[in-house]
C-alpha cells in the first residue's frame, strides 16, 4: 500500500462526533438506510428526520444490483431503489439536500466498488465531498485490494472506514488499522447483513483485540435488531449500527405495489427513537 504523499485530514464531522460523545461517555447510534428506498422523496424525508429521532451518524447505502454481502432485506431495498430510478447522482443529491438543513450529523456512504469505479474514483470523491459526505465504506474493497480509492479519499479529507470481521487475523488487523480513518466497522458475525447475532462473547473478545491495537473508535454492526441488543452491544462499541431492522420496517409499511404509505416515514423514525433510547438513557 502506497501511502506516501497522502495528507490525512482528521478533523471532519465523524471525528468531532466521536470526540463529543466520548466526552459525554455515550455510545453513538448509527442507522443505515438505502438511498432511494422505496423512492427518492420518501428516503429524503426519512433521512431528514433521522437526527431528531436519535441518529448520531448516518450511513446511506448506494444501491447496487449485486450486493453480495447483504442479506435478503437489504437486497430488496436495493431493488426497490433502482426500480424507482435511483442513480449515483441522485444519491449524492440526497446528501446535498440533507446538508441544507443539517451541517453537523456525519454522513457515511456505503456500497460496492463497481458503481464508484464506473462513476470515476476521482470524480466520486470530489463530488461526494462537495455534497457533504464525511466517510465511505466500500464493502468489496478491502485495504489490500485498494490501490485506487485510498489516496484520493485521504486527499479530499474523507474518512475511509474499513471492515474488521471475525475472520480478520492479527497481521491483517494491523494493516487495516493503518489504512482506516474515522472509525473501524466491526462486523459482529460471519454472514450477510440481517443474520442472527448470537455470540456476544466473541464480539467482546474481538473488540478487545481491536482496541489493544488501535485508538480508533469502533462501530459494531450486523444482526442488531432490538433495543436490548443495542444496549448490550453499546458496552463494547463507540457506535451501534442498525440497518436491516430499519429496512424491514420500511418494507412492512409499503402498499401492495411496493409504494410508500403515510406510515412509512414515521414508523422508521419511531423505530430509530426506540432503538437509540438505551444509548441516550446511559448519559
Amino acid at each position, binding site marked *: 500500500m502506497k501511502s506516501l504523499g497522502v495528507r490525512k485530514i482528521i478533523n471532519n464531522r465523524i471525528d468531532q462526533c466521536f470526540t463529543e460523545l466520548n466526552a459525554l461517555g455515550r455510545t453513538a447510534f448509527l442507522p443505515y438506510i438505502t438511498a432511494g428506498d422505496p423512492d427518492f422523496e420518501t428516503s429524503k424525508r426519512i433521512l431528514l428526520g433521522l437526527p431528531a429521532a436519535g441518529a448520531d451518524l448516518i450511513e446511506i447505502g448506494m444501491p447496487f444490483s449485486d450486493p453480495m*454481502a447483504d442479506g*435478503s432485506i437489504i437486497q430488496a431495498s436495493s431493488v426497490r431503489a433502482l426500480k424507482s430510478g435511483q442513480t449515483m447522482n441522485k444519491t449524492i443529491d440526497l446528501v446535498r439536500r440533507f446538508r441544507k438543513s443539517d451541517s453537523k450529523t456525519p454522513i457515511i456512504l456505503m456500497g460496492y466498488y463497481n458503481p464508484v469505479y464506473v462513476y470515476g474514483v476521482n470524480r466520486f470523491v470530489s463530488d461526494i465531498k462537495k455534497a457533504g459526505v464525511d466517510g465511505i465504506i466500500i464493502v468489496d474493497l478491502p485495504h489490500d485490494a485498494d490501490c485506487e480509492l485510498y489516496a484520493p479519499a485521504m486527499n479530499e479529507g474523507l474518512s475511509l472506514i474499513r471492515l*474488521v470481521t471475525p475472520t480478520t487475523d492479527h497481521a*491483517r488487523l494491523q494493516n487495516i488499522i493503518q489504512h482506516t480513518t474515522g472509525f473501524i466497522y466491526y462486523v459482529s458475525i460471519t454472514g450477510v447483513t440481517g443474520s442472527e447475532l448470537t455470540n456476544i462473547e466473541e464480539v467482546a473478545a474481538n473488540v478487545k483485540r481491536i482496541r489493544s491495537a488501535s485508538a480508533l473508535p469502533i462501530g459494531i454492526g450486523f444482526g442488531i435488531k432490538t433495543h436490548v441488543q443495542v444496549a448490550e452491544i453499546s458496552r463494547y462499541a463507540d457506535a451501534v449500527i442498525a440497518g436491516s431492522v430499519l429496512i424491514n420496517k420500511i418494507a412492512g409499511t409499503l402498499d401492495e405495489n411496493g409504494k410508500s404509505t403515510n406510515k412509512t416515514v414515521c414508523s422508521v423514525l419511531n423505530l430509530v427513537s426506540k432503538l437509540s433510547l438505551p444509548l441516550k438513557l446511559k448519559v
Partner: protein
Amino acid sequence: MAQFKALADQPELDKYRSGPDNYGYFGNFGGRYVAETLMPLVLELERAYDSVRCDRCFQNELRELLNHYGGRPSPLYLAERFTEHLGGAKIYFKRDELNHTGSHKINNCLGQILLALRMGKTRIIAETGAGQHGVAVATVCAKYGIPCEIYMGATDIERQSPNVARMKLLGAQLNPVTSGAGTLKDAMNDALRDWVTNVKNTYYMIGTAAGPHPYPQMVRDFQSVIGNEVREQMLACEGRLPDSLVACIGGGSNAIGLFHSFLNDKQINIYGVEAGGHGIEVENGHAASMTCGQPGILHGNRTYLLQDDDGQILEGHSLSAGLDYPGVGPEHAWLKDKGRVQYVAITDKEALDALRICTQLEGIIPALEPSHAIAYVMKLAPTLPKQHLLVMNLCGRGDKDLFTVTRAIGMNI
C-alpha cells in the same frame, strides 16, 4: 552479448502465459475484490493452491483421476462430413463432451476436490448455470462422500431439468436462487453469501475461470489439460500445430483451457465465441460482455461486464444457460485488450442452426454452449484454405438441452 539478448527475449517468449501477477492481476484485470470476511479465506486458498501446483504427488493423483475416472484424454476427432459441408478448413473437434459427466467441467472439479480434501474442508458449495458444473461438483462430492450444496437460478432450474435430476440423484442439495433474473450471476451471489456465512468448514468450488484470485488461475490450470492434449494429438496426427482455435465463452473456462497452451504460438489465430442472444444490437438481449461490455468489478475481479452507465450490472440473455453471464474471466479480458484473442458473438438462432447441422452431419448432439463455437466455425471455415487446421472445443453434450432445443425449433416429440 548473445546471452544478454536471450535474457531480454525471455519475457517476450512467455508474453501471454505468465499471468497472473502476485496480486492476481492480468494487466488491469482480475484481482481480489471481496469483503474482508472472505479475504483470509481467499488468501488461505491461494497458499493451498500454490503448495499443490508443483507437488508431483498431487499432480499424479489428479492425472490418474482424469484418466481413469474422467475418461481422459478426450479424442481429437476429424469432423469429415462437417469439413466437406463447409468446403474450407480441415475441422477437428476436441471431444470434451465425452468426459464423464458430459462436459469439460469435470477437469476442474477433480482438481478442486483434491485441493479441498487437502485443506481439510468438509462441505462444498458451488454455483451453476447450465448445471454442467453443478453435476460435476455433485459427482466428485459423491465420489468422496462430502456433502455439497449447489446454488442454481430458478430460471436455469426450469430450462435445465435433466441436470437438476442428476444433481439430486447424486445427493447434492440444490438451492434455487430467485433474486435478479434467477440465472448464473445470481447463483454466484448466493454462493458467495453462503461462503461468507460458513467460513470455517466450507470450500467454494467455482466452476469458471472468474471470481477472486486465485480462482481464474487455478481453474485455467486445471482446464489447461484440454489444450495440452490438443497440442500432442495434433502433432501426432498432422505433424504440426493447428492454425486456428475456436471455443465458446461464458465465464470462459473451456476456452482458456484450450487456448492457454497455444497463446505464445503467435501464428495461431484464436477465437472466443460469446453468446449474442437475440443479437448484440438488442439492448440487454445478449451476454456478449467483451463485444459490448465495459470494465468493472463483479464477483471478486475486474473484467468486462454488461452494465448500465451507472455501474448496475445487466442481466443479459442467452438461450444457453451456461453462457448467460454478464461477465467473463479476467484473463480473457486481458487477452482481448492485448489483441491476442479475437472475441466474436453468435446469436441464439445461429447456435440452434449449428446444433442441428452438427447433429445431422456428424451424429454428435452438442450442448447449446459449444453450438455457438460450431456456428462461428461455420462462418470461418469456408473462408479458409483446405490445408488450414482448425480445432474447436466441443466442450459439452446436448442431452441437457433437448427440451429447450426441441421447443425452440418447434419439433414435436
